[in-house]
């Protein structure tokens, strides 16, 4: 018995390492670029977007995994999209009701979680082939990986672009480089982050 639980523990750690570091959906797999760029103007927006996407990822992975034997192979993508769209509508309405300010600032990008490639990619490559519990765990870890990546980009952009972090003023009300709050800054910060990840990966590969 202890051996089994030990194995399960290793698996969970493995899931987290996979979702957050080794196969980080944004920095390594390069999926879900639109929300990463569009909702990373402030850390609060990024956390909201990350939480919404994580919720959808867990629920859709769980539902798709439960239904994986019922969904015919030929129309599986359409079926996945309907399931995902259902959960996205739920989170959209919930956010409008309970956090209207956040819902307003994320705007169009909440319904657009439907076409976030991370969610469809996990449904297709993981949830359709695995049991419900690992699938939900995969959704959770991938969601956390996405949220962390989004928050890194957003923290840099908020500090440089508006001189605040989570709304607190850092430099006495002045913005050091307001360009980072604008669309161009989003591309720039994300480009440098991915370059950093590639640099770290190549160094790790070189020492081996």
């Amino acid at each position, binding site marked *: 018995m202890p051996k089994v639980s030990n194995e399960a523990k290793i698996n969970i750690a493995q899931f987290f390492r996979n979702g957050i570091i080794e196969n980080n959906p944004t920095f390594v797999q390069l999926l879900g670029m*639109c929300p990463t760029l*569009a909702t990373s103007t402030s850390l609060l927006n990024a956390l909201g977007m990350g939480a919404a996407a994580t919720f959808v990822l867990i629920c859709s992975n769980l539902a798709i995994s439960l239904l994986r034997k019922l969904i015919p192979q030929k129309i599986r993508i359409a079926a996945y999209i*309907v399931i995902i769209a259902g959960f996205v509508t739920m989170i959209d309405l919930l956010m409008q009701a309970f956090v209207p300010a956040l819902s307003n600032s994320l705007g169009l990008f909440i319904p657009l979680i439907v*076409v976030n490639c991370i969610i469809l990619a996990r449904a297709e490559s993981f949830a359709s082939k695995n049991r419900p519990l690992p699938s939900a765990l995969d959704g959770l870890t991938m969601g956390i990986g996405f949220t962390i990546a989004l928050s890194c980009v957003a923290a840099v952009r908020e500090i440089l672009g508006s001189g605040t972090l989570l709304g607190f003023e850092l430099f006495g009300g002045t913005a050091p480089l307001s360009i980072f709050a604008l669309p*161009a800054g989003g591309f*720039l910060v994300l*480009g440098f982050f991915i370059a950093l990840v*590639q640099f770290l990966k190549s160094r790790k590969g070189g020492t081996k």
Partner: protein
Amino acid sequence: MEISLASVFVLAINAVLVENLCLVKFLGICPFLGVSKKTDTAIGMGLAVTFIMTLSSFITWLVYHLILVPAKLEYLRTIAFILVIAALVQFVETALKKLVPSLYSALGIYLPLITTNCAVLGIAITNITENYGLVFSILNGMFCALGFTLAIWIFACVRERIEHCDIPKPFQGFPIALITAALLSFAFMGFSGMEF
């Protein structure tokens, strides 16, 4: 909004230059970065998106105002639209294959990718939230898609030249593309002063 030559002109300038789909609104970034390595594939993708987006603006407007609003099912907007777009893409693909094989061979491989292009769904939802009429929705869809085509074409031209440059290793591939996009976005910021 009243339809006149002036209002259509303002809409076109806004959609193509001031509020460019990729570079300002961050919609459709995946194809923008994914299929912009060569100019001809970029133009093919741009035209396929223009075609689908104009059609989908038309159909989603009809679906929303003739089916969802009378039935008081506005909250099903996201599900209804994504299904309409997926079905439309499938239909257009089959129709083109049978009717216009030459166009199909040019656009064919890009069509399935468009279902998950967030720009198509994004514009369909924007048309509804902005309360555009039918004609304005179609025009908005078309102009936004032309803005996308312009951006992806310029971007592909730049990327073709970058191929031959000596880029530091960590920046090769995706990062340098993003930094190029940032510079392009800087250029398009020049238009943001043009308020109508």
